[in-house]
């Protein structure tokens, strides 16, 4: 059976257009204001790495404070100024660290950096396009992203410091200067930065959707899309539908903060006098925020789903198990993720019946997630597994996703959530399931597509050491947090000594802090390996992982327009690994069928 679906791909014209010649590009056009998707991907990657370092350093300050409460910080006095008094960190400063760690990691690293890097790199290469649908929009979205992140960075240095209201920025705390010192200029810049970020993210998403829908090469029907492309498509749709709601939430927050409106404020007495605000409700903000906030965790993890599926299939030399189920489960998660947001609000005072409804949807969304895990494991079964560094990060991601995902069954249940809500149990849950798992997906992608990006290989030994130190470190940091949470320790506490109830495991906190410092140090190995390999790595071959997808049909040193001649035509799905009777254990997508091959 060699039935070709989608023979008349909407963009036949692309097939034969020659790549444009850009011989006269200036340095500025080529490296800075480039519209080439590969250059933009690298720009996102460098920015993402920078933010990942900043975000991790902030978490180390948090961990030092919690693990070594007696530390004398006066050495940092010259750098931090009034944020250190008598050798002690200021509690507001601590909360700023918590806030910025969350904001930076979630938005600038896992959303902006991760999706910007691998989405921009892979979408045109894997669907067989010369570039993104709009190179200019792509460039613009990167520069707005960078502007937004510079503004966020600048907010560290304004009077009274940056926002200290948590990444969730619940009003009234986030908008009243009387309530929190960071609610002044710091919060204004925070909101401004987030708004620019949303604009940038929306541009990226539109570009992704348009590119994937319209610019697929001849023969690249939807049933032949690699899992990564499916993942990026659903990520983009998810961000397009949910980020605007966050925009409106922040706009109203800004009005309340700076223009005296009462969308979220009512009946407040603070700093010795009542405020005139009447009729608003902070619960409204929570609904608007979590309407994005929950899809956001899937926006961060979907690309990891796609990348991990791709890498596991390639390195196990087996088709991804249950391709239709894998696509359907991401789709189901995408749809359901719009219906679970209020499970963050079981204890917020909303109607308990609403809690039951959201509890049900939260349980249901765990079903497609379990299906994905079973399919990954089944892909490993009876494979011929090459444990490359990217493969290790892929199975590491699956392992962390399982560990973190299972605790979701506790927090999704309203009755149990009453005990563990806002405790370290939740911190452990989301750091494992969306934080670390998405990070592992990101690292997996970087190791896997490094040869594509830079034409060189990364050092494998350093990669192996990096992986094992990181996965052991991540488990040592986050697994004990379950115990802290189950014994009642609340999140976002500057110190646990005030309460006898919470002062039971000081040693465990110290242990976690040491593990966190070691885990961070292990990332230095990655940084060294990454930058060293860009210049001195072993030159890559064209298809180092013997993969089937189109990006490996491009030249090793990437060129404008991606393919020197015609864009390849696709004849088969992306997972023809170990096809019986085939000459090799993989058949690239652009190889035509012959009588021996199967019907894909």
């Amino acid at each position, binding site marked *: 059976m060699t039935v070709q679906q989608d023979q008349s791909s909407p963009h036949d014209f692309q097939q034969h257009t020659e790549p444009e010649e850009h011989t006269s590009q200036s340095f500025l056009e080529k490296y800075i204001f480039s519209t080439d998707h590969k250059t933009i991907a690298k720009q996102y990657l460098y920015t993402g790495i920078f933010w990942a370092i900043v975000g991790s350093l902030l978490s180390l300050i948090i961990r030092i404070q919690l693990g070594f409460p007696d530390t004398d910080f006066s050495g940092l006095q010259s750098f931090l100024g009034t944020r250190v008094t008598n050798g002690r960190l200021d*509690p507001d400063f601590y*909360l700023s660290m918590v806030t910025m760690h969350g904001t930076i990691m979630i938005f600038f690293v896992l959303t902006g950096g991760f999706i910007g890097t691998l989405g921009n790199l892979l979408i045109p290469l894997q669907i067989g396009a010369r570039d993104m649908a709009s190179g200019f929009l792509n460039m613009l979205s990167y520069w707005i992203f960078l502007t937004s992140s510079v503004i966020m960075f600048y907010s560290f240095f304004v009077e009274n410091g940056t926002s200290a209201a*948590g990444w969730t920025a619940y009003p*009234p*705390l986030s908008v009243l200067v*009387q*309530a929190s010192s960071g609610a002044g200029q710091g919060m204004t810049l925070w909101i401004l930065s987030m708004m620019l970020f949303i604009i940038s993210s929306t541009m990226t998403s539109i570009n992704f959707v348009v590119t994937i829908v319209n610019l697929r090469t001849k023969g690249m029907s939807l049933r032949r899309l690699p899992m990564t492309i499916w993942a990026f498509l659903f990520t983009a749709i998810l961000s397009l539908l949910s980020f605007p709601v966050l925009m409106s939430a922040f706009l109203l927050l800004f009005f309340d903060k700076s223009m005296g409106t009462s969308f979220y404020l009512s*009946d*407040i*007495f*603070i700093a*010795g006098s*009542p405020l005139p605000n009447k009729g608003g*409700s*902070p*619960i409204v903000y929570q609904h608007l925020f979590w309407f994005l906030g929950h899809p956001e965790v899937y926006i961060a993890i979907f690309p990891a789903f796609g990348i991990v599926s791709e890498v596991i299939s390639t390195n*196990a*030399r*087996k088709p991804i*198990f*249950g391709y239709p189920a894998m696509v359907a489960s991401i789709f189901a998660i995408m749809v359901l993720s719009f219906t679970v947001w209020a499970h963050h609000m079981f204890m*917020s005072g909303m109607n308990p019946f609403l809690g*039951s409804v959201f*509890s049900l949807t939260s*349980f249901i969304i*765990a*079903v497609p997630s*379990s299906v994905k895990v*079973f399919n*990954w494991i089944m892909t*490993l*079964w*009876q494979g*011929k*597994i*090459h*444990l490359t560094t990217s*493969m*290790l990060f892929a199975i590491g991601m699956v*392992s962390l996703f399982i560990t973190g995902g*299972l605790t979701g*069954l506790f927090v999704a*249940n309203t*009755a149990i959530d*009453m005990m563990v809500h*806002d405790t370290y149990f939740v911190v452990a849950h989301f750091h494992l399931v969306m934080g670390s798992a998405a990070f592992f997906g990101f690292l997996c992608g970087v190791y896997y597509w490094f040869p594509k990006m830079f034409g060189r290989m990364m*050092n494998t*030994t350093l990669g*192996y050491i990096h992986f094992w130190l990181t996965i052991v470190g991540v488990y040592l940091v986050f*697994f*004990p947090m379950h115990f802290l949470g*189950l*014994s009642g320790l*609340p*999140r976002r506490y500057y*110190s646990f000594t005030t*309460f*006898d109830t919470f002062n039971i495991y000081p040693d465990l906190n110290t242990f976690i802090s040491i593990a966190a410092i070691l885990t961070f140090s292990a990332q230095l190995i990655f940084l060294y390996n990454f930058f060293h390999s860009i210049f001195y790595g072993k030159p890559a071959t064209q298809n180092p992982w013997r993969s089937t997808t189109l990006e490996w049909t491009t030249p090793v040193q990437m060129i404008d327009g991606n393919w020197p001649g015609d864009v390849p035509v696709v004849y088969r799905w992306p997972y023809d690994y*170990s096809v*019986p009777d085939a000459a090799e254990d993989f058949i690239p997508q652009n190889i035509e069928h012959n009588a021996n091959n199967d019907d894909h």
Partner: protein
Amino acid sequence: MKAEIKVFEVIVAVIVVIVLVMLGRKILAGRSIQDTINNAFERAQPAIALSFLIALFVCVIFSTTYFCPDFIAAPVSKNARDVVPLFHVTFIATSVAFFLTQFGVFYFAFRYRSARAKNAVHIKQNTKLEVAWTLTPTIVFIFLFLWGQVLWAKITEEPSGDVLVIDVIGQQFSWLAHYAGRDHRLGQNDFRLIDNVNTAGIDFSDPASKDDFIPVQMHVPKGKPVRLLIRSKDVIHSFYIPYLGVKMDAVPGMITTLSFTPTETTRDMQKKLKDNDFDFEVACAELCGRMHFAMKLIVVVDEPAEFETWYNQQPSWISTHNADDLLQ
């Protein structure tokens, strides 16, 4: 001692020499040291993956059993106590899933390593298997959900009969508990009446408020339902008693409710935990600013008779304050 050290040194030296000789031979054979190291590491990966799996299981089992006794999975209030079996069943279900799937991930990575496996099997899907593993979790999840909702309905139900109603106010950074006094009727309150004296904003033109009192420590009786009407003056707080397993946000502009029935007195707990300084503590569980970590109130759980005595001894708030200081 000295001899031992020498033996040790000799062994180390021998190992170093052997390694050097082996590396040297490899180099002579035309392979770079880096390739040799890379290959050695690559070959070791499946074994490391298997060791990691074993270490993960050992550590998880050991640490969980070690910390188990301190879990607050045994809260001492009526509805929260009923959640414990649900917690345990969820714990068992997730543990089974954890061990099976983690085993699958790392053991398969070891078992089907490329050095040993012949060829990968070309399987695309298996509908029966996929339907089975979609339905199994669905059934388990729905069971857990339904059980949870039965408990949730009880937790959020308004208690009937002889209920102690307390007006709880969250503020940066403390809790106030406003009791109804001997008439068992809470006085009205309004945030516009709040000032530095009348911190709870009680409306003293309401006759019901005349005998209301705000004690330094909150007292509740054992075995009798308590219903809290929670409000906040400034930002969002969350009223959280870890040992009773209860939590509810305090939101400015609205009143939230929380009901619980303590099943042990403070003295029972002191005996049980062999700690004479034990106290039930109220903490804040929603980030509320600078001193969020220190927003504490002590709750004393008394025997009902003791509670009655304490309740009737409390002087009314108005009698201990100068009426001229009030707004009105």
